[in-house]
């Protein structure tokens, strides 16, 4: 660029100092300087992007302990974990049997109730209360709410229906309600967000 023939500028012409292959020292210096400045510039603007990620005080909310001793069979409670609503439901033997009777081939997101609960605690169904369609909170955590055709949860936003294992059965949602990591710290308390040490 600096050797454009016919350029009217006085010292824009660097002179024909070729080193055989048409690659001049000036080209080398230019590429080196611009690359160096480019990498430095990228490093300098990195903080503008990393600051967007969750801050330390948000990450500190990663686990929540919930007392489940008061939950009657057939009912449940809503809790909060990382500012997201959570369903903790105590299934009745009838609801467990209903969930177990469904053939996996009927499911959009095939999973058994065993896979969605902890061993020895098959009646405790703990899921995020976030519909996997577009994030509304489904109804049905207490018996008085609409539980939909399959007796689990019903999302009022776009009509997704979940069964008693919180698996998607009908409607636009693609996946079952998400089961978070959790563990029982005692027989009546669960620690959401941690798989436990066992």
């Amino acid at each position: 660029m600096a050797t454009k023939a016919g350029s009217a500028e006085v010292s824009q012409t660097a002179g024909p100092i070729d080193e055989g292959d048409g690659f001049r020292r000036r080209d080398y210096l230019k590429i080196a300087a611009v690359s160096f400045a480019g990498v430095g510039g990228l490093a300098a603007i990195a903080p503008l992007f990393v600051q967007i990620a969750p801050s330390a005080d948000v990450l500190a909310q990663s686990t929540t302990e919930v007392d489940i001793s008061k939950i009657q069979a057939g009912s449940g409670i809503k809790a909060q974990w990382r500012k997201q609503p959570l369903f903790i439901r105590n299934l009745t033997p009838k609801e467990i049997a209903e969930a177990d009777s469904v053939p996996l081939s009927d499911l959009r997101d095939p999973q058994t109730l065993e896979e969605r609960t902890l061993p020895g605690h098959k009646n405790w169904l703990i899921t995020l209360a976030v519909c996997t369609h577009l994030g509304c909170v489904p109804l049905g955590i207490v018996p008085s709410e609409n539980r939909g055709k399959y007796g689990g949860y019903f999302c009022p936003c776009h009509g997704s229906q979940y069964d008693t294992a919180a698996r998607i059965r009908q409607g636009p949602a693609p996946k079952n309600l998400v089961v978070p990591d959790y563990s029982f710290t005692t027989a009546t308390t669960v620690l959401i967000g941690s798989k436990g040490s066992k």
Partner: protein
Amino acid sequence: MSFSWAKPYEPKHPVMRWLDERLPLPRVIYGAIGGGYPVPRNLNYWWNFGVLAGIFLTIQILTGIVLAMHYTASTTDAFNSVNQLIMRDVNAGWLLRYAHMNGASFFFLVVYIHMFRGLYYGSYKAPRELVWMLGLVIYLLMMATAFMGYVLPWGQMSYWGAQVITNFFSAIPVVGDPLRVWVLGGYAPDQAALTRFFSLHYLLPFVIAGVVILHIWSLHIPGSGNPTGVDVKDERDTLPFHPFYTAKDGWFAAAFLLFYAIVTYFLPNYLGNPDNYIPANNLATPAEIVPEWYLLPFYAILRSFTADFILPAKLWGVVAMFSSILLLFFLPWLDKSAVRSGAYRPVFKRFFWLLVVDVIVLGWVGGSPVKPLTVAVGQVAAAYYFLHFLVILPLISRFETPLPLPSSITESVLDHREAESLPPSAARRRTKAATAAAE
């Protein structure tokens, strides 16, 4: 847009041609900071500080936008949102905040150098009076923005700074006190003041950016000045902005930003006041209240008035402080000398440096505790500041005999006889050969 030999924009890529025919934005940029803007070939390093000021404005806007994503403008939460959330919890928050804090100081530093460059080389003189005046508007907006930004962390200095600065309004006769209450939205700085300061602190930098565009636009009508103060005569006197000055500005900016990075990383609180790490307390003023360093000379002028004289001392102080900046708007008409550059004005040059010393003394006084000696020094220095602009400068321009000016910019940088004796094309060929040999 300034000289007949300025290269017109010629789009190389068909996409750029398509764009240029519909929206000539690339053309405007090419003519403003590209190969289409001819710049005097003899600029020295003092001419790098305008571009640097633009870089620091950009740094302040970028870091400020992301800090505002984490800051809470509430009297109960502001202090913690800065000192806990941003400084400890947000990823790289400490760096962004220190970069913003020190960025303000460095922005003022480069703007002061830029302004004193203008004072020495007569950049305020015809035909660039408006460039100078728009620059002063930017400077006033910067001071307002910096002050309001300093209030946001809601520490002790924030609070008492807000209290003191807004009390300037109360010095105005008759309407002063109601005006101050109106500005604050209360009787003392509180939630209403904090929220409006935050809103304006976010707004004003974009107003500054708008005035910067006017500043550059008005500069590019006559074209940039130069250290000789001699007008550009022909094509030999200029070089295209790109690649010559983009390269020079680029390397100098990298070097200067290194200096900024060193302070930001290793001395982040050197320019700040430790009292601002104490949460605001509306019942206890800090033992010593000082503004940030870049406002100290004006603070000294404010404090120089200690006795009532016809008007109350308080009013004199505020009037003098504002006048010290406002009188700079009249500078193009106070200095009537036809010679622009201080390099050819032997008397002016000496008084220029005396003014620099005077402003530094004012800054020192402004940062010192009030004692009889510092007050006396401050009064002399403040008086001299006004004397310089209102008396000395007009007198010098009347009586001074300037040194002989070079007949052209090219003559001042090249061998005299050669430049004079050769026709333009021959001179160009010789320079070309010389540059090639140097390579």
